[in-house]
């Protein structure tokens, strides 16, 4: 009887943690593997923006980004059993996202829309007064970055990886991640400077 009560209590605690979003990614994966649909939902809500953001920056097209995001989550759901927890979930998910985008592009399902810094409309000071316009301008500038810099920046800022995790995801030294992120930001800072853009 005591054992049953303890189990019920543990279940209640787990449920409250899930609702409060207090469970770690690893806990969520464990719960999802048991068929807990709230864990699946929590994983989707925690990571869909990052996946979609990467895909949108890769393809430059929201329809393609949506297709890629859906494909990523289908792969993720079906591969949860193979996630061994040695790396952070975000690292694993980032790799899936990157591979899915590359696969879709190679298969010709969607083609990334090419962008060139020359095509970037220089922002004005007024642009930065409007958050929506500012974010759109920033995204347009990010899409002009070299892919390896854009990916490194996305790994750190969208997927929340630290430099070590990103280095693991790209299989490159930590110093290379740092320099790619730095170079990306320096380029963006120049592109987004209103003074440079002619105010």
């Amino acid at each position, binding site marked *: 009887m005591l054992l049953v009560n303890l189990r019920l209590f543990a279940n209640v605690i787990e449920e409250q943690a899930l609702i409060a979003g207090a469970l770690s990614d690893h806990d969520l994966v464990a719960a999802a593997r*048991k*068929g807990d649909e709230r864990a699946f939902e929590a*994983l989707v809500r925690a990571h869909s923006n990052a996946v979609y953001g990467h895909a949108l920056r890769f393809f430059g097209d929201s329809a393609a980004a949506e297709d890629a995001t859906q494909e990523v989550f289908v792969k993720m759901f079906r591969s949860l059993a193979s996630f061994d927890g040695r790396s952070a979930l975000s690292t694993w998910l980032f790799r899936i996202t990157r591979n899915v985008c590359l*696969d879709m592009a190679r298969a010709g399902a969607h083609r990334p829309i090419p962008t060139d810094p020359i095509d970037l409309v220089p922002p004005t000071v007024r642009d930065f007064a409007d958050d929506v316009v500012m974010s759109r301008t*920033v995204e347009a500038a990010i899409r002009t970055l070299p892919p390896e810099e854009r990916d490194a920046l996305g790994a750190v*800022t969208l997927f929340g990886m630290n430099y070590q995790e990103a280095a693991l995801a790209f299989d490159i030294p930590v110093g290379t991640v740092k320099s790619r992120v730095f170079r990306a*930001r320096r380029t963006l800072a120049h592109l987004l*400077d209103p003074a440079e853009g002619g105010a």
Partner: protein
Amino acid sequence: MDCLKAQEILSEALDHDVDAASLAEARSHCDGCPECARLERGLDVLARATAPSAPEDLVERLVALGAKEAVLIRAAAAEAEESVGEPAAVIPVVLMARKRWTPRLTAFASAAAVLLVALVATGIGLGGMLSANRGVTDSPRTSEEYDATSAYSYLAAPDAEYGSADATKDAVAQPGAPPYVVLDGVVYAPMGQLAVSPSTLVTATSVATAFDTGTEPAAIPTFRIADETGTIVLRTAPDTYLGFSTVTRQLLQRRFVLTSGSDIPAYGTWPTLLRRFAVPTSPDGSPTFSFFVKDDSGVLVYIPAGGTVEDGFAVAPGTAPDDPASGNPNWTWWEPE
């Protein structure tokens, strides 16, 4: 502080906590440096910008997909529990399988021993059998080898290891498959008879194989050789060892070995994909694998979702005739050597 250092600190401060004194110094540097001040303004814009958000209807679709997946998982778990809860239906099957195999293995042992005697007596031997496939020359037999019936009682020993009907259920026996054996999931191809010093042998286990005798498989004592990776020897008679080596391929200047998710009970059985991977339902490897790279000979290499090639890779059926996976109708998995 120079400009580069100041800029790096300002950039890193967006990603993680940096030393407060260094950050203050970098900001102070910007006060007197227009170039770095400009970067500081740009970084400020980046920090304030919001990242793209997935459209709400997409998120709802993903949540619905997750719910469906959860239902499938629960259904599978319930089915498994039901099976466990019905011992009358399950356990007898297992026992029957074992009972069925025990006498058969004893019979296989006798048959294999008799076969060995016959082969040895006719001067063919297993080495000779191998030579038909791999050009191996046989060597003369000693008189000890003729006493096979008593010497090969081990042929029946690993009943428990090879007693399950499951052990071979998904092995694909097809004409044309190479003469492989499998040990610990790694596939080996015959090298012919080897002269080995017993002192260099490291006990491994047994390999269940019928070679190409057409009989049922028997457990053959198998050894690794000290300081020699990629080679095993099967003792087919006292002091008679058949060598087998891993089947390998190169990728990115590293060697990878062929594995099999199912037993290979006889020559002519194709290796299968490891059980931890679902067999891809599409030629492009999905949903299990994603295309990774083409190797030097143009073979497409695939890796699992979220995986790296350092952990191994998959190759689709249909490789060229000179490829080590040639002819295999299954996906194959290659692990680092």
